[in-house]
């Protein structure tokens, strides 16, 4: 037995918009973390330049704000795609409200996190898209992201002339002043950094252990699943399509 390998089928999991969303999030978050830490603790550079002729710190802040708006727009798009995208992008993945979802969370905790023996070896336990625990963690992180957005926008609301950040002035009043708001904004950055570590590790973990393209799926869009899990083979589907076409042609002929 040990010498036979399983047959795998290539499945299109992450559509182009999902992948674009993912990489915009990645690079925007990296830029925001880097510029954020520069803003929080800028290097004190000794210089002879007059203040009039230099604006580097202003540019760092501008980069931070522009990138933040890109990330916000990106999230708006992803919310739309949760309704428009394929089954793996759908909002239902992110809320474990079904029995199946809750069972899957415990499965993932048992087998992937606490590394216990998978006794059942049921193929349906292996998620094709997100597993329910991962998806739920993305939902939690997106809530923290909303808090990050709300605190960030409330901090620039007073110097902004746009209505959008002005919608968030209540956040300052809620937390009792800018100093606390800024503080929450700072702490959440660390939370996101810890999450990035866990996220990247678990992707590599799955890729290493399952070898079905977990990491590269976010580039190619494809993952591999055992062929037993596919109801109809590609050949069968092509055959069906051909028959359909043939029937259609016949119908056309009989009509004319």
């Amino acid at each position, binding site marked *: 037995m*040990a*010498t*036979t*390998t399983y047959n795998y089928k290539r499945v299109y999991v992450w559509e182009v918009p999902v992948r674009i969303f993912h990489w915009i999030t990645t690079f925007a978050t990296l830029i925001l973390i880097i510029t954020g830490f520069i803003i*929080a*603790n*800028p*290097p*004190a*550079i*000794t*210089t002879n*330049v007059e*203040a*009039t*002729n*230099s*604006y*580097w*710190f*202003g540019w*760092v802040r501008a980069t931070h704000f522009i990138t933040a708006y890109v990330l916000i727009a990106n999230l708006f798009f992803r919310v739309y795609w949760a309704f428009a995208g394929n089954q793996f992008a759908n909002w239902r993945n992110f809320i474990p409200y079904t029995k199946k979802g809750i069972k899957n969370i415990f499965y993932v905790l048992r087998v992937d*996190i606490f*590394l*216990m023996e998978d006794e059942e070896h049921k193929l349906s336990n292996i998620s094709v898209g997100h597993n329910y625990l991962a998806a739920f963690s993305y939902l939690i992180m997106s809530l923290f992201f909303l808090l990050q957005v709300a605190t960030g926008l409330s901090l620039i609301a*007073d*110097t902004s002339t746009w209505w959008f950040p002005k919608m968030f*002035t*209540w956040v*300052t*009043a809620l937390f*009792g*002043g*800018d*100093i*606390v*708001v*800024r*503080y929450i904004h*700072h*702490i959440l*950055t*660390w*939370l996101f*950094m*810890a*999450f990035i*570590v*866990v996220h990247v*590790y678990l992707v590599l*973990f799955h890729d*290493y*252990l399952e*070898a079905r393209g977990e990491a590269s799926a976010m580039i190619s869009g494809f993952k591999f699943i055992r062929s037993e899990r596919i109801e109809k083979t590609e050949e069968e589907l092509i055959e069906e399509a051909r028959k359909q076409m043939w029937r259609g042609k016949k119908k056309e002929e009989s009509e004319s």
Partner: protein
Amino acid sequence: MGTLQKKKSKTYYESLMDKGHSRRDFMKFATFMTAYMGLESSMIGQVVKAMETKKRIPVIWEHFQECTGCTESFLRSDHPLVADLILDNISLDYSNTLMAGAGHNVEEAKHQSMKDNYGKYILIVEGAIPTKDDGVYCTIAGRTAEDILKESAAGAAAIITFGSCSAWGGVQAAHPNPTGSVPVDIIIKDKPIIKVPGCPPIAEVMTGVVMHYAIFGTIPELDNMGRPKQFYGKRVHDSCYRRPHFDAGQFAKSFDSQEAKNGYCLYKLGCRGPVTYNACGSMEWNNGLSYPIKSGYPCIGCSEDKFWDNGPFVERLVNIPGMGIEATADKVGKIAVGAAVGSAVVHAVATNIAKRKEIKNRSQRGKANEENIKA
């Protein structure tokens, strides 16, 4: 007190003239106040008109748990007419610190004034109100601050809180708040409250707020934390004269550095300007002479809620409350990210042990395939 009762029927203009000020002084003052209240110069005429025709408003000024620093600041307002106007002409009927009288007589006079002007007077509150142990930590004439406040507020048209103590709780309410101090708006819920925070507030701001009410008869536009927008609408940072250094990334590293001497931005020395709403940058103190940042010291954010707890003052990042003295967010964050990396490494090693059969099995199969690749 009797003389004050008589003065009450006069307008602001009349009482100023009675004191021997010239029309020119009056016009200068009106212009000055218009500018301070953040109004356009076309409004000067209206301010003059209001001061010529409006009757003076009686003021009750209560002092509770505080240092009287707000009064001190107020007395040092730069324009001679500012203090004059409030102290003499707004008919200050009761103020523990400023009134000449004492004892039962003034208490009686206060009650008389409150009765006569019921629903019309402005109540100014300076200082926080202790609530622990039935409020015994601040008693005046045998009554607790809370009791006095409730009584004075009942007939007030509006309440103006002078200073951070009556606006937020201030130093008394700082951790661990031994006397259970609370700001005015925790106790009084049914009156319009104008918060004029600061430790102390700028004298011209205090006058400006009172004058706004006196002249227009309405409370000024407030932000969502109850502060008048014309004075607290901007952060100290947004009107700071050192702002170009901030944008240019020129920061002072320490108080004795060459950068500090050059007048660079004090951001890295913990300046709270970027998170503090106040008019220090535009109005400044002591006749527009200076303000902390101009004197080379970072803003400590004295007009912000819990400014005393959000220390240390000369560092950018404040300590996390309840996590020891030196627990800044960065320390906790580094530990959290370190723990994440550490557990990832441990998990990776554990994976290779726990799933060794699976990994071995798979690699055998893969190797078998490798040997069988068609040429």
